[in-house]
């Protein structure tokens, strides 16, 4: 049987990205294709869960709300007091057999991810996002679940002036339309997808 073809949520949107020729763009948009996204639920005090995660993925869950811990290509995003999202760029995260009393649910296909970067990235986000994104208030390795343009989005500040936006897959195309329009006034380059 032939290998099944994987289609990505932004496939049709990012088509032609290679030809995007804006000079000195205020914002660059690139689709991310993380290999794996795993939803973790459990008690932060559950030692079994913690050690399973450490052993399997080498991650420690962030306990401070709205922060991220990073380990290699894997980021652990705080989503709630008993909920995290593990995102790995490269690895397929196989849930450990006995994650303490926690539960791990594969959500690798549930969200589509855009990476926005550039000097005007905050100005673009501020068009739809009510959070205070000033670097003092929302530094690197801070994340938040919020709503942008009526879409639930996870915002992850991965590097200075670089933000990843996770939106539910079914909203992706609509969200893409909103984001590209929001970027237009600043000059926007569309970079090819990065996986």
């Amino acid at each position: 049987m032939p290998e099944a073809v994987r289609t990505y949520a932004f496939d049709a949107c990012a088509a032609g990205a290679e030809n995007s020729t804006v000079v000195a763009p205020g914002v660059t948009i690139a689709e991310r294709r993380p290999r794996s996204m795993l939803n973790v639920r459990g008690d932060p005090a559950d030692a079994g869960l913690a050690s399973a995660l450490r052993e399997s993925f080498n991650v420690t869950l962030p306990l401070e709300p709205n922060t991220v811990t990073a380990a290699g290509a894997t980021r652990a995003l705080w989503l709630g007091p008993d909920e995290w999202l593990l995102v790995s760029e490269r690895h397929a995260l196989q849930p450990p057999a006995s994650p303490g009393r926690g539960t791990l649910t594969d959500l690798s296909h549930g969200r589509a991810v855009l990476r926005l970067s550039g000097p005007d990235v905050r100005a673009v986000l501020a068009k739809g996002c009510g959070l205070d994104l000033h670097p003092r208030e929302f530094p690197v390795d801070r994340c938040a679940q919020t709503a942008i343009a009526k879409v639930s989005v996870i915002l992850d500040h991965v590097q200075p002036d670089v933000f990843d936006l996770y939106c539910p897959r079914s909203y992706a195309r609509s969200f893409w339309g909103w984001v590209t329009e929001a970027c237009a006034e600043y000059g926007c380059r569309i970079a090819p997808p990065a996986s």
Partner: protein
Amino acid sequence: MLSIPCPYCGPRDVTEFSYGGDGNVRPPTGPDAASEAAWSAYVYLRANPRGVHEELWQHSAGCRRWIRVTRNTLTHEMHGSAPARASAAAS
């Protein structure tokens, strides 16, 4: 636009939340559990004060926690918030 203090995420715009109404209604238990009147009261009668109101909200576009917020319904002054669960367990 209200700013609601999520006990987890900090203050967020009200547009991230959905409202859950009176925070002090509880399904009848004990002897009341058999009383239709008690159930009707639980479902249909809510505190509706002009003043301080303890109410539930879900941080639906955020951490998805249900929280208990104390707010003045006339001035919208906020008197704090807590996880909904903690008080429920305490009662």
